[in-house]
């Protein structure tokens, strides 16, 4: 097992380097750079040039890349051009809101979607099945920010039972305010996630219910419901867990929108602002960070397979 893990971790290195190279080149080759944004309205051309010089942006691209990878090796993601703060510190500051928002969303979505999908599969073809599928399809059809506005308008403005925006850390301000503030954002974010998982659970449970060992269980006189619980779900787990992995990448995208609408100081907004202001170190650092998280989560998911299916051993 450990050989597999080390092998998998090593195999992430080439991917990360590819990502780093891709992001680095994408930024350098595109028009517009931070120097002119900083120089502001009054600057003359030489001012902009001087600032670019000072930021090291006028060196040849290769030199800049080598310098960046060098600092990367020592775990230093560089310093934000605008705020002067190290990127690692910025990520540290804003990791908690995004992480907790993602976690609450995933748990909420899985807790709702898996039973829904299983029910739809168990009663496949019935009204419930069609309703679940329609809900899951419509989950894919509404943009997240429209969903966010509607929820704010109904629950925060009209009913005034939930706050409009903001994030309260459970560690400093307590669990109550945290859930009080995280409910609407994680509801907005989870709609598309529930749609994805419900559809996948339904598909894999239907497929499992056609397997031979289900027929054997029936031949033992087992009740349909117990068959579903004991034989069905366990075998349907692997594809469902896989889709959760794919969903997480989708989630990171959704976080950017949700954080903007609900004004949560998370990583999503950090990278969005950085892109609009051309803060290269933050963009590079964050995209690397996101891809590392994605690869790490997929490794965890692959390892979780061993718990779900005895046939899978590494």
């Amino acid at each position, binding site marked *: 097992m450990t050989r597999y893990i080390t092998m998998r971790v090593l195999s992430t290195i080439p991917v990360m380097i590819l990502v780093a190279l891709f992001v680095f080149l994408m930024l350098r080759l595109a*028009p*517009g750079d*931070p*120097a*002119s*944004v*900083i*120089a*502001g*309205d*009054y*600057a*003359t*051309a030489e*001012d*902009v040039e*001087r*600032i670019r010089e*000072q930021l090291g942006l006028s060196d040849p691209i290769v030199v800049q890349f080598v310098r960046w990878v060098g600092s990367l090796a020592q775990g230093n993601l560089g310093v*934000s051009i*605008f*705020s*002067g*703060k190290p990127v690692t510190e*910025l990520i540290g500051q*804003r990791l908690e809101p995004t992480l907790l928002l993602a976690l609450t969303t995933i748990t909420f979505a899985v807790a709702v979607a898996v039973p829904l999908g299983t029910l739809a599969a168990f009663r496949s073809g019935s009204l419930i099945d069609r309703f679940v599928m329609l809900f899951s399809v419509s989950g894919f059809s509404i943009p997240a920010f429209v969903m966010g*506005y509607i929820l*704010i308008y109904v629950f*925060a*403005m009209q*009913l*005034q*039972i*939930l*706050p*409009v*925006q*903001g994030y*309260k850390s459970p560690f400093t*301000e*307590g*669990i*109550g*305010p*945290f*859930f*009080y503030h995280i409910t609407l954002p994680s509801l907005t974010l989870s709609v598309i996630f529930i749609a994805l998982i419900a559809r996948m659970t339904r598909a894999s449970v239907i497929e499992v219910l056609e397997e031979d060992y289900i027929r054997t269980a029936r031949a033992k006189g087992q009740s349909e419901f117990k068959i579903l619980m004991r034989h069905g779900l366990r075998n349907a787990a692997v594809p469902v867990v896989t889709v959760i992995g794919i969903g997480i990448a989708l989630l990171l995208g959704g976080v950017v929108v949700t954080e*903007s*609408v*609900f*004004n949560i*100081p998370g990583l999503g*907004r*950090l990278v*969005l*602002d950085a892109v*609009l*202001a*051309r*803060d290269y170190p933050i963009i590079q650092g964050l995209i690397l960070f996101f891809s590392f998280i994605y690869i790490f989560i997929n490794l965890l998911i692959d390892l979780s397979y061993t718990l779900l299916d005895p046939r899978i051993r590494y």
Partner: protein
Amino acid sequence: MLGWIKRRSLLAAVLAVPLAMGAMPTVAQAETTLRVIPHADLKNLDPIWTTAYITRNHGYMIYDTLFAMDEDFKPQPQMVDTWSTSDDGLVWTFVLRDGLKFHDGAPVTATDVVASLERWGKRDGMGQQLMANTASLEAQDDKTVVLTLANEYGLVLESIGKISSNVPFIMPARVAATDPFEQITDFTGSGPFVFEADQWVPGSKVVYTKFADYVPREEPVSAASGGKIAKVDKVEWTYFPDQTTAMNALMAGEIDFFEAPANDLAPLLDANPDITVEVNDPLGNVGFARFNHLLPPFDNAEVRRAALMAMKQEDYMAGAVGDPAFWKTCHSVFPCGTPLDNDVGSDVMSTGDIDKAKEALAASGYDGTPVVIMQPTDIPILSAFSLITAEKLRDTGFEVEVQAMDWSTLTSRRALRDPVADGGWNMFHTWWIGADVIDPMAIAFSGNPEAGWFGWAEDAELETARTAFAVAGSADEKAEIGAKVQERLWAIGASGHLGQFFTPVAYRNNVKGLIKSPVQFFWNIGLE
């Protein structure tokens, strides 16, 4: 609807129970906090390194200035106690008032002032002109600073007391020693608030606490001048990327002060009884449509003037700003209501008639080269200006191509003088706050393509008038030169003026003591 309400009480009850423990506002501690939504995200903390207005506002929180503009735009002493000039007007001596202290407890000395003015002098437009006319600037003793001019210069106090970017803030000498093209990293100032560096979350939250040892002046507050008294213990800036959410937060009482709501939201905010909406900056902002004088078709003054005739200010203001309560037309290059505002030569701007513009364009020999307008989609007002100009120029007979981009790309492309084919441009739109275009010294009115504003207008007569203004003494002499500058600006069609508009501020009724001024100050504001 009825069903919904019944369920609402049930839902509220259910939710309230588990959240009771945390949901109630934290116990009202002694400390009062002013929760503010600033007009932009504070990305950078060096008011000399960048001219961004948000960094300037940050500067006013934690630094102090020698002089400061009052409501009538007269420089008043702030850190200076007494000052005198020699008979020939060349030697200026300034003496600092007592009790000036930096946040780290060290007293403010003349050496700090000199170092700060020198760093400011290298980056700010007016500062550069002042330094060009200065022979020497030294600290005579701890409290006295002597400025010796090389020749006659009329704008000494207007320069070191200027209200907008880059403001000559006074920093400790060790900080002012930083190269002006590098960012400072130490944020010690001597202003009424202290910047809490460790609580700063760039892109989201900035925290300032009251500086207990600050000794305010006695005079009453008037714009930037007067006693700067912090009436709250803490000021918290929280940047909101989404206007709708910001408005809702103010209405729900989660925020106290909303610096720049979108004009169109004003009626909604106004309708809420707990919120006051008013215009805080008497001068407002002036919309600009800037031509690139180097490239065809706008290298020809007649073509530029034809374009100006097509620009009807009412349409720009209605389209981009909306509610007429927040804008007015002003056909002077200087903001209406300021000393130099006049209507010499402004008929070209006040025509606003497509047919006349068509005739002028035909007469100008325009050969159909396309006009490339850069449109910043992430700034609503400028995006609207670009679309309106595009339509008006098309109606007038121009070939127009609108290129959408974000503000960052625009700021870098407008610095390029290359032809359109390799990334150049013909027009872009922006706005200046009234204070920045209040007199001919504004870079926006420069006629010298080398050191002037992007667009690089060129007119020798304009430049001689502007230098004359610098040395002009009396008010009517300045007014006369002002009219001359305006006449030249309209003659060469330097830029289109799209009207004067005011961004309101919105705050809850328990917020008191807001200072009327073109720059947003947070001292003197208290919570009832």
